[in-house]
């Protein structure tokens, strides 16, 4: 599979904003972009996360691994305040994004979500055309000129490697695309808002192996320019793409962060015995 994006001569004005595929991790200087301090989360009386503290480093891919139901998705939802939409959800602790309190009551949540995008497990293309899927949030955020919109649509579709596949049918319904294409469209839609961080909740688990590989390559190419936090059950995938990894486990019926560190260390020399058992496939 060719990983380089082909640069067709018929689109001279289109600049690719993502670089080519880089070699594996680690790649970056640790500079925290999101700092999570003592984060706990309850759904009603039921605890979901207990006292999680970790830093998300700028430009890196951070993988969160662990069994189902240990609060990884809940953790992601705190980072873009989607937890606000869940009734009876209580969050305690501190989260700083770019040194600003992310949980401050007066924070502009819509602006925050523009900076911290999210990709869901199941691709959620809106029941609109491919073009409108990308344009709708852009228009929401005040981009109205047709030329700007067209340029941005083309650019992000090129970034996710979808342009050549859909450039002749931008007006076709997005839901007619294949699962892998839909997921790449969703990533393109999130990238169109020029976020700083992308949260990905098992973005490949609903896809077939080939589509999954394409999306994985795309995630690799986001490294450096975007900060990626990815929840994955696919340990091999986490090992391939992550710079940092966090291992979650359920303790006393609440999700806890057992170990966090460079992916190489987590997978090859875990400190905690639970981590060791999990990454070797003995538990979980």
């Amino acid at each position: 599979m060719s990983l380089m994006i082909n640069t067709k001569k018929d689109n001279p004005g289109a600049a690719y904003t993502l670089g080519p595929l880089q070699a594996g991790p680690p790649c970056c200087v640790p500079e925290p972009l999101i700092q999570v301090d003592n984060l706990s989360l309850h759904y009603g009386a039921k605890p979901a996360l207990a006292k999680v503290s970790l830093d998300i480093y700028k430009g890196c891919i951070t993988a969160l691994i662990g069994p189902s139901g240990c609060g990884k998705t809940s953790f992601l939802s705190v980072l873009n305040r989607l937890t606000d939409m869940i009734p009876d959800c209580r969050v305690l602790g501190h989260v700083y994004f770019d040194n600003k309190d992310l949980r401050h009551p007066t924070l502009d949540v819509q602006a925050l979500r523009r900076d911290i995008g999210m990709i869901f497990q199941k691709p959620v293309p809106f029941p609109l055309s491919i073009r409108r899927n990308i344009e709708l949030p852009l228009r929401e955020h005040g981009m109205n000129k047709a030329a700007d919109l067209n340029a941005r649509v083309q650019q992000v579709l090129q970034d996710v490697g979808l342009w050549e596949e859909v450039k002749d049918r931008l007006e076709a319904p997005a839901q007619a695309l294949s699962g892998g294409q839909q997921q790449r469209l969703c990533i393109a839609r999130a990238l169109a808002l020029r976020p700083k961080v992308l949260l990905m909740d098992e973005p490949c688990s609903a896809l077939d192996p080939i589509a999954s590989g394409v999306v994985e390559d795309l995630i690799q190419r986001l490294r450096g320019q975007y900060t990626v936090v990815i929840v994955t059950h696919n340990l091999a995938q986490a090992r391939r793409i992550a710079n940092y990894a966090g291992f979650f486990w359920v303790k006393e019926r609440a999700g806890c962060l057992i170990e966090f560190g460079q992916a190489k260390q987590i997978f090859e020399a875990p400190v905690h015995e639970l981590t060791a058992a999990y990454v070797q496939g003995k538990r979980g």
Partner: protein
Amino acid sequence: MSKNALATGLICLVAVLVTSVFFWLLTDLVIHGLPRLSGPFFVEASQNAGRSGGIGPIIVSTALILLVAIVTSAPLGLATAVLLSEFTRPGSLFGRLVRRSLDVLAGVPSIVFGLFGNAFFCIYLGLGFSILSGGLTLACMVLPLLIRTAEQGLQVAPNDYRLAAAALGMSRSAALTHLLLPAAMPALVAALLLAIGRAGAETAALVFTSGYVDRMPDSLLDSGRALSVHIYDLSMNVAGGDANASAAALVLIGLLLIINTIAMSLAKQWRIATP
């Protein structure tokens, strides 16, 4: 005979019984009513208390009553459905209270709505026996049905859309207008349809509110006789009115079928046109 064959036989029997009742009814109406149906029947005024002549003014009155009912209930109903499904926390006291009241209202017999409409619109608000009173009474009557059906339609719209839209920093109202309402459109049209059908078939609520007058109405404040009231009157109060009653009933059934078909095709087009 195996249990399966027995069950299949019973189900078929029930299906045949149900459809045969409908066809019996329809055949009866066609036999008695069809000979009376003609071009002039649709436009002429009724004569001799409806024994002869047509149903022109009655069709106009019916249309006006339905128009008033839908124009007033649709925006109210839609707004309430949106409020309940999008802006009320599940299980909140307010939501429970509104839903319970609607369920109670939906179970109120239409004659009670008729009496209420007579007391409130005709007498208290001084609208008298009029198309306006009748339409407003029908609006009250179909509101619970409209709201609950529309609310269910909105709840069927995938929650993924709400989350995905929020994750893209879109406001709730934007998600509502661009994603949820279009996704719920077929259900909303169906809700409106059900409401029109219910209102169009209504007699008891109209007898006390829009009245019996079978002249062509000059304005919404004139009394006007709805088709269903006309059918009721001809078959119950007018000796020798049965044939015209059957003809009018055929027209009513035909109208409801047409409304149904148009609305369904609209819903279908909406779906195709939205992408």
